[in-house]
């Protein structure tokens, strides 16, 4: 997770989805969580049309992580895909916690 990274929560319909810069320290913790995850056997369940639909971490290096409902998918700059299981939604929670206070609707995750 080198260089500048941005967090995004896919949640709105009319307004632009919230985006925020993710600090270096949080990136290191996210990387540690990602490294500890085990391979997922399937993708996430489909998200509802309205409401929270997942979150993303996008870095200037071209790497992107999409997290939703217990699955985190990493797409490398080269295009390769690695999907890991995160049943406790640690990665997703940590990523959302890096958003500035008040930017996200409350109680996005159960």
């Amino acid at each position: 997770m080198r260089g500048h990274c941005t967090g995004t929560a896919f949640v709105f319909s009319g307004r632009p989805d919230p985006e925020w810069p993710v600090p270096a320290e949080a990136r290191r913790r996210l990387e540690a969580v990602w490294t500890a995850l085990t391979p997922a056997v399937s993708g996430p369940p489909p998200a509802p049309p309205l409401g929270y639909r997942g979150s993303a971490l996008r870095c200037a290096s071209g790497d992107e992580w999409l997290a939703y409902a217990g699955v985190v998918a990493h797409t490398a700059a080269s295009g390769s895909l690695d999907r890991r299981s995160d049943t406790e939604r640690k990665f997703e929670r940590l990523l959302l916690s890096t958003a500035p206070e008040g930017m996200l609707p409350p109680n996005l995750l159960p």
Partner: protein
Amino acid sequence: MATLRVEIDIFSGRPNPVIELTGSDASALVDRLGKTRRLEKGEPGLPPVPTLGYRGLIVSQVGAATRKLPRSFRLAHDTIAEDGVLRAVADESVERVVLESKAFRDAPLDRDFKKLLLREIQRFREIRLRWPWRPPKVKFPPVVLRCRCAPLYEPAWWNDGGQKQLRNNCYNYGSNYRTDTFHQIPGGSQPGAAAGAMYTSITGPEVRNAAIADGLINNPTANNKCPGEGHLVALVIWPGVDFHWYRKGRTGRWSHKPGSTPVIDVDNSNAVITDPRTADRGGYTQFTTFMTVMHGHVKIK
């Protein structure tokens, strides 16, 4: 001798070819058109509606005009039309004068244009002989259009996974007004932004008034009924968080586009939306109002 400007009225999308007859070519056309008579009842006239393909030559006199011809008229086969009055000329192949003129030969036309034009002149003759057309003897099944002015439900057009899908939101889709500005510019795809009256808080009245500033018409008593003109949209609010729009389509069913995601016609419970007031709307719990979109009246940033 007058110069005759001749527009070959044949194209729809491209400009029609125009040539100018001068000298002996112009004289030849004037002579061939010399004596005319009014069309008798029952003689084929010109179709009163424009047809596709050759429709005649539009001839205008340029400069010093001869009194032997009208200033401007349409010529097709043996008929000239001036201000809606049809007259017959003796020679029914008078267009050949134009086709054989020096100006036509020298004009920068496509190589096979003359052949095409000859075929088209004949085709138009057949059209005139068949006029008035009878309606085709085909029985079409009745189509139930509950909202005849409403836009079609055409998700494939919006759901391109690219610019149309990602840069347009529920407001664009609801208004059927593509801006490609969502997430792209400040205020992009936001109610009121185009009018300098963007909402300042996420409440029903704020977003409704912002949409009114964009040209939408509040229609709170629509009760899920299509308006006579334009189409119906519905505004719902996730209090303090976000707004969302649905639109009623031509078949009477509702569809929507949640943010940058694809256009769909089901709600959060995967049920067809017959009334947005009763649909599963997730956090968008406040139904605010129905509104009418008059096509062409709305402006979105």
